[in-house]
């Protein structure tokens, strides 16, 4: 009772704002490892990471002794549960194709430590649609997946099909952007035409009123003549609604970035041309043959990259094979780094292999790469383990140094959203 009287805040904190606590965890850092940490989560977000934290009496403890904690991994190019292929258009939206009840697929991705995905629509050549960011936490009404950014980028695919199809697709995209510009021009002229029309209409109405007063004095012939002269002004026609063009206009106005999938050198040069032609805020996805056209890419300001390493058959590039698949530089990440270009890794698939792909592409620097936030253009969702973070992955070993490390638990907003079947059940009081 005395405690209640003298420390009401403490009592309220103990009883009503039970923090979630992870005790005895380690955290990989750039220099090594911090051990025996206590992570305290309040309101779903990390409030404190410390070796000397004072754990509240009534806290909810999640068993985490000996595990390694990192922030949740982020897949910058995912097709998780999305339909792939077919034709796209600007008004298509990846969130519409996301199936939050596809439990197995989403759990598979969570089990690899990925907690946030950038859903990129993958269609045939041309404009594919709009991407969005999704957090894989449990959603209200069931399933997993909460929309955290509605319109992340306008996606364009310059990389699919035969060379002639890619050329046609490029021409069509240019035409669509030009049409969008024309539409804006016609919208602008409609506005001015409308103003003129209103003024003319006003004058006409006034004249009509005057004419009405002196109507009885005029002969019938004069009346006919006046009718022709005093015809009402014609109302300008409003341009038809065109949602696709409106979205393209948002890209032209730098309100949303453009994500261009381009892998071969030719596609990359087309992408450069498109970006320069319309002064787009662009991110290039793929860039397999960037080494060949690095000088052209460097000419563009603020260009960033989402790179991946698709699994390709050994048979597509070898002795005597005339391959049409992009020839990928083995050191793409290092190349972009060397030329001071921003890059992140996106799985290009559902995301379950993101961590292995990141390790493959960046080696020991994988964790640093996975947690960097230096992507310009597209809003990167990567982050480190720090106060304020609400996505936590607990690993069986240090993921920075041990390839056999695997996620054991995934915590979002203080709730265990996935845990290894053999692990102890999380959340005990």
């Amino acid at each position: 009772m005395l405690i209640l009287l003298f420390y009401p805040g403490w009592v309220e904190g103990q009883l009503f704002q039970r923090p979630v606590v992870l005790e005895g965890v380690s955290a990989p850092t750039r220099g090594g490892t911090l051990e025996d940490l206590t992570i305290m989560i309040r309101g779903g977000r990390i409030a404190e990471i410390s070796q000397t934290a004072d754990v509240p009496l009534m806290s909810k403890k999640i068993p985490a002794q000996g595990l390694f904690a990192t922030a949740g991994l982020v897949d910058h190019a995912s097709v998780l549960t999305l339909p792939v292929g077919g034709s796209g258009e600007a008004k298509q939206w990846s969130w519409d194709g996301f199936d939050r009840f596809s439990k197995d697929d989403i759990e598979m991705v969570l089990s690899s430590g990925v907690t946030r995905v950038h859903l990129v629509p993958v269609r045939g050549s041309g404009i594919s649609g709009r991407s969005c960011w999704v957090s894989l936490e449990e959603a209200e009404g069931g399933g997993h997946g909460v929309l955290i950014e509605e319109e992340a980028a306008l996606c364009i695919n310059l990389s699919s099909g035969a060379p002639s199809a890619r050329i046609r697709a490029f021409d069509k995209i240019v035409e669509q952007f030009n049409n969008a510009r024309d539409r804006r021009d016609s919208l602008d002229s409609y506005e001015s035409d409308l103003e003129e029309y209103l003024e003319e209409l006003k004058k006409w109405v006034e004249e009509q009123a005057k004419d009405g007063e002196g109507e009885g004095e005029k002969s019938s012939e004069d009346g006919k003549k006046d009718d022709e002269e005093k015809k009402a002004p014609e109302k300008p026609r409003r341009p038809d609604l065109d949602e696709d063009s409106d979205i393209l206009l948002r890209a032209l106005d730098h309100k949303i970035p453009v994500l261009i999938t381009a892998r071969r050198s030719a596609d990359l040069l087309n992408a450069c041309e498109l970006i320069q032609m319309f002064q787009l805020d662009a991110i290039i996805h793929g860039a397999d043959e960037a080494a060949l056209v690095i000088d052209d890419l460097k000419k563009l300001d603020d260009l960033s990259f989402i790179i991946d390493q698709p699994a390709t058959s050994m048979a597509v590039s070898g002795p005597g094979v005339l391959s049409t698949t992009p020839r990928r530089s083995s050191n793409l990440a290092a190349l972009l780094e060397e030329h001071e270009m921003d890059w992140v890794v996106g799985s290009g698939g559902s995301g379950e292999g993101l961590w292995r792909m990141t390790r493959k592409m960046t080696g020991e620097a994988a964790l640093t790469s996975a947690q960097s936030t230096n992507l310009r253009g597209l809003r990167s969702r990567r982050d480190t383990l720090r106060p304020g973070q609400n996505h936590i992955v607990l690993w069986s070993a240090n993921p920075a140094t041990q390839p056999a490390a695997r996620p054991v638990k995934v915590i979002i907003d203080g709730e265990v959203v996935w845990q290894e079947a053999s692990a102890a059940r999380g959340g005990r009081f």
Partner: protein
Amino acid sequence: MLNRSNHQKPNSGNRLFLFGLALLFTLTLSIPADAGGSGVAITGAQVLLPDGNLEGDWAVIVGNDGKIQALVPSSTVDEKAFDHIHRAPEGSVLTPGLHDLMGALGTRGKPGSLRSGTVLVDDHLDAGSSFDSSDPWLDVAAHHGVLYTTLVAQPLGVVNGKSATFLCHSDFSATRLGSGKMMLALGDSVLSANRVPTSRTALLSIWRDWMQTGPEALKNPGLLYVAEGIDLRQALALPWSADAIPVFIHTGGDGRSPLNLVKDLPKPVHMVVGPLLDGGSRAHLMMAVRASKQGVELSFAGGLPAGPADHLRGSAAMAVSAGMDANAARRALFSNPAKVSGALETGEVSAGKRADLVLFSGDPLDTASSVIHVWRGGQGMRVAEPGKVNELESVRK
């Protein structure tokens, strides 16, 4: 680098130390007197032991006969006594060759030439007859550390002849390893509308009748193709003798696979699973991990040249991510396929085995590791960095 101690049981340290001492004593004694003055010594790398552990500070002595002469502590190697010393970079790992099981490597991508099934019990079919040693993919695979290919006939009959294992080396002559194992099958692949058996009931009846005759093909453990859970269940109901339990080729297994029945078999039980690919069946992946946890020794099925060059290591990395023990995954990559295929002179870095070795930049389970150097029969081959793209594509807008 993977720390070995993290993957051991708490009390296994002393046991391993004693084992190491015994191994050291045995191997030191086994170095031939003329080991000095010839051969190659590979030093500085961690060595993969048959149990899947990685041990540092060992040197591998390769003789001029293309075999491993000894495994000795690095500090005891007299460098002047060897023709060549290969100093491996720090953190690198020396392993046996990877093994592409039941793919089409060495057939110029034409696995159709391995058809069987016109004779239901075909003891004489030799999968090796379809091997083309000039297949250029053999050398490409070797550059990725895949040094062996095991071919089998398609499982269209009850007995589909013998498997054949070859060294991956594009050459005029083939290097065949081991004598192969009989390839058996029990499943839908054996059924046909044109000949018996046309139904599963008939197939089981044929199997029982054939087993009662005490066939030669069942005197030794063979390879049994039981892709689905029901195939494995029905196979386990047959009267196998304890010393002829086959290797189960269970590449289509899932949650319905009767692993509870498998674990009761005399150890070790070998099973071939996979290949495991990103976006593939999670049910199969979890079945494989569960089998491994129950003590079944796994091997990963190959798929070259159609699959990605590093898909074997990819399968192992996926399985480890899903909960498989790292040592078991390394055994599944290296030593178990040698046992499965019957190529017993391969699969281990130990004295007397073929000097088919791969030097990885790190743990082969780590997708970040790459192949640095390869030895086939003691003949070294430096693996260059993958070539840079240096030719501009001609077609562009």
